[in-house]
């Protein structure tokens, strides 16, 4: 039994989403041409999440992928809330005041974010009030703190990450009179999620990463070839600095038990994450919350289980590592993806495949002769070449989909093997997770002309 190519396509394309940024939105010339995103589930339901939004009160665009574990609750909450925390952290004092006054007097709120969502990317209605109140408390504190300094993006990102994780923790400790919400905040806190977020504003690209998702820049070399530039470090056992950091934060007596089998306390793969209060709270706090919590929580063996050698919490943080990069004209695209992609593909291959895909599409743009010396034969050769390229990438209109097709279907020669693709996609739910992880990808395409112009200004 094989899936037909159209069946394969319908599975691969079910979650694809593309957004084209208007080159000039009335205020700014955007350095982002647009982005393609997609995700392919292995877990049922999928535990990955993705978000994309344009900041409306400040400049720039936010994009992020979130890889959940022990359920999807935390990844879902972070995907809904983190960008608001970042946006608020970036807002100038006056805007914060304006927003607070609007809320106070019941006036319409200034819109903060414009979301770019696939229809499957949902927000929970029930928790919105709760989330909003936490967010409001945050900006009220920011107003009180008024430092008078201009907001630094790096700091804003770090603050936002830490604050949101803190709020998740607090909400779970306080609980909620509504039993549904009460259970929800507990599930959010007891599950975990990594986050890899990009903030693009003109030539300033900031990547804030917590966990083992990855951001990678696709760079076109002068000879036309493609190379990958890492813009994040994985927070896991393979990262020596990360292992070092964890060890520094705990007494030497725990050195041996901190990282076992490449996992934190022998349990957790990512060394940084949202939620996961089991690695953050004291044992007493955990016990108290679980006991007073709803029955479903008590029945869950995982939540009740206290990690071994748990002496000096917290063992885990949501604080991101932020990397700033000045975009150059040769920086053509950015790939944000959860570890599901990076487990199967080397970043160099990712750079090449996306690069060739995008130039294939790019070359569909019209060519013009103008005053150049071109012969009929040269033009004919060029057009033939373009046609050939178009037909090979013709299947996918979305760079993320194209990448997933390769990630899942590549054979040993690095080309997509339909038979393999079909097999991988027709695995039954319970088996799928054994052969592959959830994959979520965002490919952001940059406008080299705009970036070049920015550079010249500086």
């Amino acid at each position, binding site marked *: 039994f094989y899936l037909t190519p159209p069946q394969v396509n319908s599975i691969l394309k079910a979650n694809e989403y593309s957004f084209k940024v208007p080159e000039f939105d009335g205020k700014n010339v955007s350095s982002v041409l647009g982005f393609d995103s997609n995700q392919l589930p292995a877990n049922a339901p999928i535990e990955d999440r993705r978000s994309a939004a344009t900041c409306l009160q400040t400049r720039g665009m936010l994009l992020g992928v979130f890889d959940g574990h022990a359920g999807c609750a935390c990844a879902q909450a972070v995907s809904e809330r983190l960008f608001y925390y970042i946006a608020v952290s970036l807002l100038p004092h006056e805007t914060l005041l304006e927003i607070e006054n609007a809320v106070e007097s019941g006036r319409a709120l200034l819109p903060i974010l414009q979301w770019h969502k696939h229809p499957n990317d949902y927000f929970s209605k029930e928790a919105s009030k709760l989330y909003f109140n936490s967010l409001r408390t945050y900006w009220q504190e920011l107003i009180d703190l008024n430092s008078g300094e201009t907001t630094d993006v790096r700091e804003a990102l770090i603050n936002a990450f830490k604050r949101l994780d803190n709020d998740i923790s607090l909400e779970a400790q306080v609980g909620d009179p509504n039993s549904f919400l009460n259970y929800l905040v507990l599930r959010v806190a007891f599950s975990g999620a990594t986050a890899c977020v990009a903030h693009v504003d003109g030539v300033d690209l900031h990547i804030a990463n917590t966990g083992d998702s990855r951001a990678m820049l696709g760079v076109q070399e002068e000879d036309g070839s493609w190379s990958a530039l890492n813009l994040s470090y994985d927070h896991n056992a393979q990262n020596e600095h990360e292992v070092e950091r964890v060890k520094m934060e705990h007494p030497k007596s725990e050195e041996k038990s901190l990282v076992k089998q490449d996992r934190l306390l022998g349990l957790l793969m990512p060394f940084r994450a949202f939620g996961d209060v089991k690695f953050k709270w004291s044992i007493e706090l955990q016990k108290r919350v679980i006991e007073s919590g709803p029955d479903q929580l008590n029945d869950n063996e995982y939540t009740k289980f206290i990690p071994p050698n748990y002496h000096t919490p917290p063992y885990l943080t949501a604080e991101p590592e932020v990397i700033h990069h000045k975009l150059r004209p040769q920086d053509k695209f950015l790939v944000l993806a959860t570890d599901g992609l990076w487990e199967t593909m080397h970043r160099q291959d990712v750079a090449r495949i996306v690069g060739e895909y995008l130039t294939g599409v790019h*070359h569909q743009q*019209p060519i013009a002769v103008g005053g*150049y010396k*071109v012969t*009929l034969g040269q*033009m004919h050769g060029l057009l*033939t070449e373009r046609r050939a390229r178009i037909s090979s990438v013709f299947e996918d209109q979305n760079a993320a989909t194209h990448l997933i097709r390769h990630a899942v279907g590549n054979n040993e020669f690095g080309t997509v093997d339909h038979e393999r693709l079909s097999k991988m996609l027709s695995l039954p739910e319970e088996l799928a997770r054994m052969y592959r992880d959830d994959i979520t990808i965002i490919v952001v395409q940059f406008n080299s002309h705009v970036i070049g112009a920015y550079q010249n200004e500086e």
Partner: protein
Amino acid sequence: AAGMFLRLLSDIQWRAAHPKWRRMTSSQRSTSTTAEPHPVSLPAQAQVVICGGGITGTSVAYHLSKMGWKDIVLLEQGRLAAGTTRFCAGIVSTARPVSIERKMAHYSNKLYQQLEQETGVQTGYTKTGSISLAQTQDRLISLKRIASSLNVMGIPCEIISPKKVVQLHPLINIHDLVGAMYVPEDALVSSANVSLALATAASRNGVQIHERTSVSHVTVQKGRVTGVETDRGRIQCEYFVNCAGQWAYELGHSGEEPVHIPLHACEHFYLLTHPLKEPLSSSLPTVVDPDGRIYIRNWQGGILSGGFEKNPKPLFTEGRNQLEIQNLQEDWDHFGPLLSALLRRMPGLEALQIMQLVNCPESFTPDMRCIMGESPTARGYFVLAGMNSAGISYGGGAGKYLAEWMVNGYPSENVWPLDLKRFGTLQSSRTFLRHRVMEVMPLMCDLKVPRWDFQTGRQLRTSPLYDRLDAQGARWMEKHGFERVKYFVPPGKDLLDLDHSKTFYKPDWFDIVGSEVKCCKEAVCVIDMSSFTKFEISSTGDQALESLQYLFSNDLDVPVGHVVHTGMLNEKGGYENDCSIARLSKRSFFMISPTDQQVHCWAWLKNHLPDDSNLIMEDVTWKYTALNLIGPRAVDVLSELSYAPMTAEHFPSLFCKEMSVGYANGIRVMSITHTGEPGFVLYIPIEYALHVYNEVMNMGQKYGIRNAGYYALRSLRIEKFFAFWGQDLDAFTTPMECGREFQVKLEKGMQFLGQEALLEQKQNGVYKRFTMFILEDHDTDMDLWPWWGEPIFRNGRYVGKTTSSAYSYTLERHVCLGFVHHFDEKTGEELVVTTDFINQGEYEIDIAGQRFQAKAKLYPFSSLFTQRRRKDEVELSGYQRE
């Protein structure tokens, strides 16, 4: 290197301007003597206002002023010859498939040739000749058909071998060619300068030309043009001519009373190159490679090559107005296949340097023919537009015909195939036009075999029985938007195979239609003929009868219940329409005309009937479904269904009665079948259509009833020598010329339109005669089939052309109908055609260059029909249509 090259190209796309082209055209323009913007203010009134300063507008102005009309204003929104005309490839070619188009192109060629001498404006006229290439045998056949037609027009033309092609044009790769057609007198011109020359001559003749003046709309009062509103004020006028090219549709719709001009623009691409190392001679023939979809002409030492791609890009569907045609984007990827075809045809051009890819919009029409004539709703509103990328070839001739039309009331040639009134509002939908022109543009190059049909814009008008018939295997063709059955594929036949019936030879439906014909002859068949145009004309007093008696040549003062076949003639006695009229009561008439008469006939009647509120005319086409019951057993079916005796004694031929059929009452039954076979046509109010059809089919079962289509009908009518309006009959044919004196009542006691002309013909004789030809040595299985338009030779001399043809299953021979002329052997002058002249000749019909012996007959084979003839079978030579 290719990579670098790519980047260079994508970087320069930001620069939109094409300075080289601009400079080139302005240098061309500087040679002109007219056409600087008039500082003069617009006149307050004029006899004629022409909108559009392209080739068509200037040609109309030129010819009107030549014919003596002086009070003419030509308005151009931008500058003269700045639209499609400026970008036109400038090829004047007579190698066209339609007769009237060949005539227009031929005239244009002669006109342009002497234009420079006449006006002093350089037109760049060069007689280069043209070569049309055939890559397949079928293509060669279609070229041979054109060659036959050109030769009898006196235009030199020959079918040549690939070897000869190389001698004429050394660059052509001939390895895939089977032959070609060479037309040595085809020419090249600078289209903008031709237009400027025409404008120069017109302005010397008194035509006022105003550039940078836009017409906003045309005002119409009481159905007549009264004036034109422009951005520089109003001009009162009697005549308005819409020559606005691709904007003609929008301009037509801008007034309060819209004039529907169905055309739509498509992007059209052609390539200009730098000169070759050894520059091409300016006398090198133009090459048309229809199988490669391209044309190639010499241009300033290099080449100009464009084409008609399979996937055209329609534009301005939403109607984006703009002044001159801006340089549209060049689209090399789109042009790719045409470039491949060019390099395949001329591989030696690989190293030739590109100058520019020009993108210029061309307007196309729903049937690939241009649009001319007067609006059916606004008198004095004339149109000439929609040139389907042949504006230069047709411009001169089309302008002449339109000028004649305006000055004399009708052009000197039959232009019905181009008449605006062949269209109605139904072809005016932008969606329809967009889809249709996407089919039409590639069709410019596609091979057109007999009975080809459009595939887009279908299923617009249908009979209520459409689904029923379709489920029974109906195959459809379209006329005036109406779906009509060609034939029924019997169950079990291979359908796929049948759809590939595109051939110049015996088609695969031959046996299917044969069995339908047999059933019509021996039992009974039903043909859905609902597409007929149906009008009801009634009055409170005798006005209806009196007016119709004036408009129709036959006597309509017949007893109630009688049906009369009659022509609706013009002053020259020619057929404007050919119809059947039933007298429903003393004061009301039911008129049936061909499908495509809906707009034309309505306009004709509106224009000729007195303005009398007691005279009521209604178009009831949509109200009735028409079922034609053909065959000897029709009478049995109908009498069983109606419990009424239907035999000839009770229901004579050419009789009409309202009766009940099945449960349904008020069915108009007429004892005519349009084929000469016995039977009836039932005009059924549409809500009863399905019921009556079911009843007829159920009852008919025991009489062997079956469905039939129009192909069977055509075979039946042609073997009985029935002429069909629009195919055989036109405004230049009188009843005297087609053996229908008996449908003309010269002594009916009152004057009628065309009477004088007919009287004169009766006295002096006719100059052409409708004749039936039976092909003698034609092998139906092996030989090319006749279609229509084949030259007729009498004693080896050309005497006329066929107008229709069909295989007669009764005679087991092909029958062609056509007109025989008598040209004086020395002077070529037309002489009277007598019966003896017809009977005493040896005839041949030329099918794609091959001549077949034919027997000429002026009367049908009576022996074929005597057994079933009723005593008053007046219908026999009666009216007919398909």
